[in-house]
């Protein structure tokens, strides 16, 4: 499961854009059904080896961003109409999902999406579809990270508990040996104890395996606690970014995302326009 050779080999090639991050999104605009404008010039970068969090309220366009990166938009009548996505210096804006997976980009979709009628083991085998030669070796690594999956190997995935399904979804993505793992709300609907366990595992994947992680979360506090860097998005664009630790201390973030402000929880949308300008631009 070493993140060795392969996809990263082309890192730092002359074609790499200025920043040279593993993943770079520039001015991305996404439209659904030819009229619904969802991303309005979103830019972000994920440097190799880092754990980057992408936060934002419901409907901000976080999942859409991940669908754009992985080429899934076309399955939902969505389209990138402006801007670029680069991976390791190569443009992948209009690439096929299967090519993107082969490059080492794996997505764990919001809502788990395990193959219900397949066994746990078969789900994992599907995860290794693009690299059949290493399935056995990776199965061992995944089962070491998720001992519960090895206990339930032969069980139909549809009958796993929500937490086990989330572990399976993450384990399945790891089977492709990704250099960049994208997780869409992995803590959704899980009990606090399980949330802690999942976050610990994500952190280990980043630190021990060297997997670069792009993490989307509603649970901003926890996400900031394990992330290196974070972006906050509203209405289809990034409104704030910075070191995760700094953001966790930012008064506005505290107020609107961590629920610690005097005025309690409110949407970021409610902040007066001038205040946003002053603080963040």
């Amino acid at each position, binding site marked *: 499961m070493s993140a060795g050779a392969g996809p990263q080999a082309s890192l730092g090639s002359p074609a790499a854009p200025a920043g040279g991050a593993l993943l770079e999104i520039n001015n991305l605009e996404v439209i659904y059904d030819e009229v619904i404008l969802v991303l309005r010039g979103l830019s972000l970068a994920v440097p190799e080896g880092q754990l980057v969090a992408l936060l934002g309220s419901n409907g901000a366009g976080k999942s859409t961003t991940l669908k754009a990166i*992985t080429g*899934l938009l076309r*399955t939902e009548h969505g389209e990138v109409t402006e801007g670029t996505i680069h991976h390791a210096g190569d443009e992948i804006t209009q690439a*096929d*999902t*299967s090519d*993107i*997976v*082969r490059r080492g980009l*794996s*997505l764990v*979709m919001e809502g788990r*999406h*395990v*193959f*219900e*009628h*397949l066994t746990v083991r*078969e*789900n994992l*085998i*599907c*995860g290794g*579809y*693009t690299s*059949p030669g290493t399935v056995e070796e990776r199965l061992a690594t995944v089962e070491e990270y998720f001992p519960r999956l090895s206990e339930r190997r032969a069980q*139909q995935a*549809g*009958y796993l508990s929500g937490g086990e399904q989330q572990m399976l979804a993450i384990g*399945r*993505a790891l089977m*492709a040996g990704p250099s960049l793992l994208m997780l869409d709300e992995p803590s959704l609907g899980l009990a606090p104890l399980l949330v802690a366990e999942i976050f610990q595992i994500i952190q280990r994947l980043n630190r021990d395996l060297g997997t670069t992680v792009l993490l989307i979360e509603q649970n901003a506090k926890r996400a900031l606690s394990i992330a290196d860097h974070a972006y906050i998005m509203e209405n289809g664009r990034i409104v704030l970014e910075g070191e995760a630790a700094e953001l966790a201390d930012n008064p506005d973030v505290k107020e609107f995302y961590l629920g610690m402000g005097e005025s309690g929880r409110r949407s970021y949308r409610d902040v007066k326009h001038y205040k946003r300008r002053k603080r963040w631009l």
Partner: protein
Amino acid sequence: MQTFIQLTVSGLANGAILALAAVGFAIIFKATGVINFAQGAFMAVGAYMVYTAIADFGWAWPLAIAFAALIAILLGMGTERFILRPMVGESAISVIMVTIGLAFFLEASLQFQFGTRPLRMAPFIPEGTVLILDVPLPLNRLIAIGLAALVLGAVGAFFRYSRNGIAMRAVADDQQAALTMGISVRRIFAMAWGIAAVTAMLAGVLVANIQGVSGNVALFGLLVFPVVILGGLDSIGGTIVGGLIVGLLIQYTAGYLGGGLQQVVPYILLVFILMVRPYGLFGEVRIERV
């Protein structure tokens, strides 16, 4: 007792062939959601291709089967690529109409080319009878059962153990998630149609070996519908059980009741099943967890 055993063997032979014809239908429906009314026509094409290769080209039958398999793969994958892929997003009824149209087109083309008179090809499965427990049984039927079982076993193993077979079931479960595994849904669809056409071809050849080569091969293929309705449209195991039940039912009706009743009995069963158990005996029920 002797009649019973003979009817049973004939019924099992027909049933095994039916299962073989129906398994492709189930594979296409499960993986791509398309109801393929051209499955019987695929069988007829297979039978005529083998006939052509043996009678006209003078080839040995293994070569003839390989030739027919190649044509079947081209036909199946071509149907997916040029007829069904452009129809993605159209209503289910339009898709059904298109496969019905394809069936008529294929059957008419065969008639145009080969005429309507039944053709006899030298049977490649040895004829004759064998005595089992003192009952004389037709050898060709026993061999047909064995061959069908072999092919069905291979199909089952493909879905259970092979990487592409598992991926095909994954696509059936959740296409978007399958895409995120790097599985090419298009390739899987093409594969499903290819496998379905080849199994249909083999079923067609087995029918032709017993009944001769004619439009009746496609007619036999109509029985696929009671089979899959009985077994569950998307269940591979179900098509085997469904095929055997329908095959036996036809033979027992013909043997004990007669009077042509065997022609309608499968369809009476079809209507009955639709009334009491619309997803068939083994159809997949969605998993509901709370």
